[in-house]
């Protein structure tokens, strides 16, 4: 039960960051940012660069980051630690363990294996060993099931694959979603409007693996234009990225449609028209900027949704990305692989959300003002 208490305490601490006063938030945020940057640099470029980079990073953060971003840093770094702990706990509570296989393992052999891989029987001890490994030795640890490989070695080739797939899918969903949504909103209740909203409804309603399977049959088996599955050239990327982008594209289309309808009724648009600006200028320079604000704030959840979808799409198209390692690791109880992929995914989400926050502050003056 002590683990559950620790978990609750962690959650309470996390919530308590809401009471943190602005000055302290600023200070803590910069320190944590510098710390993370320092640890990352130390293991990639050496100790001296790490210390220097950490200090410079903290200083830069203190000077230029808006309070909104620092508040997020104060929250997210402890959240990452909590995530590692919660994942450990859930894996230990799951029946079975990484050393159980068809042949019965003798207790002595199991004990030796547990010592070798640093997987004690107690979740708290494992967490301690894992955090020490992460912060002091700078490694994600050996994989328990894939003999003789560390988790970094497994993830390193998979990371660019998942990243390029995810980024392409996100870009596609923004392009499709914005185009359809803005067109539909400008020509409200026209055939184009009904068509794009119908497409959006289909995108929301069909799971991505059904869309993917249909694409696969049509474009690979019937027409023979694209390879069925696998990885290698850019042509392998097209179908998975498209299948992955549709659900988010549909949401973005709906958001930008209602966004542009609302903006077009506002006074500054009427003023711009009254000044005699051409309609394309009114829309492109004035209306669009306001209409994409809800879309930008959806990008964080969209990234998470695309990651969720990528588990399924990677399995469907046999893409050698991180999603496969996570699913495989979870089923095989390969604790270090599950934790390693979870950290990388969560790190991606954090970095992406910080970028979204910065973009948001740039687009919306009301957020930028809150710096002091």
């Amino acid at each position, binding site marked *: 039960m002590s683990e559950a208490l620790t978990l609750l305490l962690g*959650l309470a601490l996390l919530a308590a960051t809401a009471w943190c006063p602005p000055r302290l938030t600023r200070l803590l945020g910069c320190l944590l940012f510098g710390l993370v940057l320092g640890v990352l640099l130390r293991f990639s470029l050496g100790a001296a660069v790490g210390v220097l980079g950490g200090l410079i990073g903290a200083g830069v953060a203190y000077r230029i980051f808006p309070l909104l971003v620092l508040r997020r840093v104060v929250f997210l770094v402890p959240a990452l630690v909590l995530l590692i702990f919660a994942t450990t706990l859930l894996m230990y509570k799951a029946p079975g363990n990484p050393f159980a296989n068809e042949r019965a393992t003798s207790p002595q052999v199991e004990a030796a294996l547990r010592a070798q891989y640093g997987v004690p029987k107690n979740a708290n001890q494992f967490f301690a060993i894992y955090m020490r490994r992460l912060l002091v030795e700078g490694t994600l640890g050996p994989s328990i099931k894939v003999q003789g490989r560390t988790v970094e070695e497994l993830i390193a080739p998979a990371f660019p694959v998942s990243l390029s797939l995810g980024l392409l899918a996100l870009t596609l969903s923004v392009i499709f979603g914005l185009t359809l949504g803005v067109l539909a909103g400008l020509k409200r209740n026209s055939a184009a409007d009904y068509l794009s909203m119908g497409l959006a409804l289909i995108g929301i*309603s069909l799971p991505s693996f*059904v869309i993917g*399977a249909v694409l696969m*049959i049509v474009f690979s088996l019937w027409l023979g234009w694209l390879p069925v599955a696998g990885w290698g050239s850019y042509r392998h990327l097209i179908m998975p990225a498209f299948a992955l982008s549709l659900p988010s594209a549909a949401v973005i289309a709906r958001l930008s449609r209602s966004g542009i309808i609302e903006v077009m009724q506002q006074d500054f648009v009427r003023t711009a028209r009254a000044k005699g600006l051409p309609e394309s200028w009114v829309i492109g320079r004035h209306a669009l900027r306001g209409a994409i604000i809800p879309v930008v704030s959806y990008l964080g959840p969209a990234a998470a949704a695309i990651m*969720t979808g990528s588990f399924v799409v990677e399995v469907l198209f046999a893409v050698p990305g991180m999603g496969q390692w996570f699913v495989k690791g979870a089923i095989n109880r390969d604790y270090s692989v599950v934790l390693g992929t*979870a950290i990388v995914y969560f790190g991606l989400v954090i970095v992406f959300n910080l970028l979204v926050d910065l973009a948001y502050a740039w687009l919306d003056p009301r957020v930028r003002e809150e710096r002091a």
Partner: protein
Amino acid sequence: MGGHESPIQSPFQLAFRRLVRNRGAVAGALLLSLMTLACVLLPLLLKLDPSHTQPVLRNLPPSSQFWFGTDGLGRDLFVRVLVGGRTSLLVGLASTAVSVLVGVSYGAVAGFYGGKVDEAMMRLVDFMYGLPYMFLVILIMLMFSEKARGDMLPVFLALGLVQWLTMARIVRGQVLTLRRQEFVLAAELLGASDARILVRHVLPNVIGVIVVYATLMVPSVIILESFLSFLGLGVALSWGQLVSDGVAVINPVRSYWWLLVWPSVFLGLTLLSLNFIGDGLRDALDPKART
């Protein structure tokens, strides 16, 4: 029920009339009830067995004997689609119930007390909103993986516990504005307790919004369950599992299209009609939030 002539109509009567005029929503409701009736009643009435194998009749295309064809073990696909639909619909409803329960109480408390309590509670929601929740679902499913064959409670919990965030946000926003209105102040002055004000005075005003978003949540839960089944982590025969079986036999030599098409069509139609109903309800009950 007031007729067309009655001059005064309650807000719910007005909303109902708006809903009935929405053709998409009515068609969705009809299709969904038909689908539910078929999936729930037919297997019971006809005593159909989805795992009855007939090795001689493997991989038959649709015919008058087997309407949807048979699979690789000679099982009747029609029966399997019906029984799978029962699971998918049940998972959709039960998990939504779990997440409505959690989301509404969480959001109501946050909105009612406001201030720092609200900020702290919503911070956790924001945090979980950014997580790829598939992690949590997969990990929670693993906890029950051994004894859970056929037991669906873990699925309800796992899916329900990651889906409540939107509901919490929406309810919180509504409660936050209602909180400042005169009727709440009046109830406070009369000495009503916080719990009574929340349950008797505030929440009834939010019911419409809750119904709308609960309806829209059902399809996303069904999709999530189909993801799990697709990854081999489901616990019972469902549409997701059938689609995944259909995908597994895609090959360039022989086409077993019926194995993929029927479950996909049933799944897609159900999700479409649920979304139609949800959008219709939103336009009828919550005209401001039209997207």
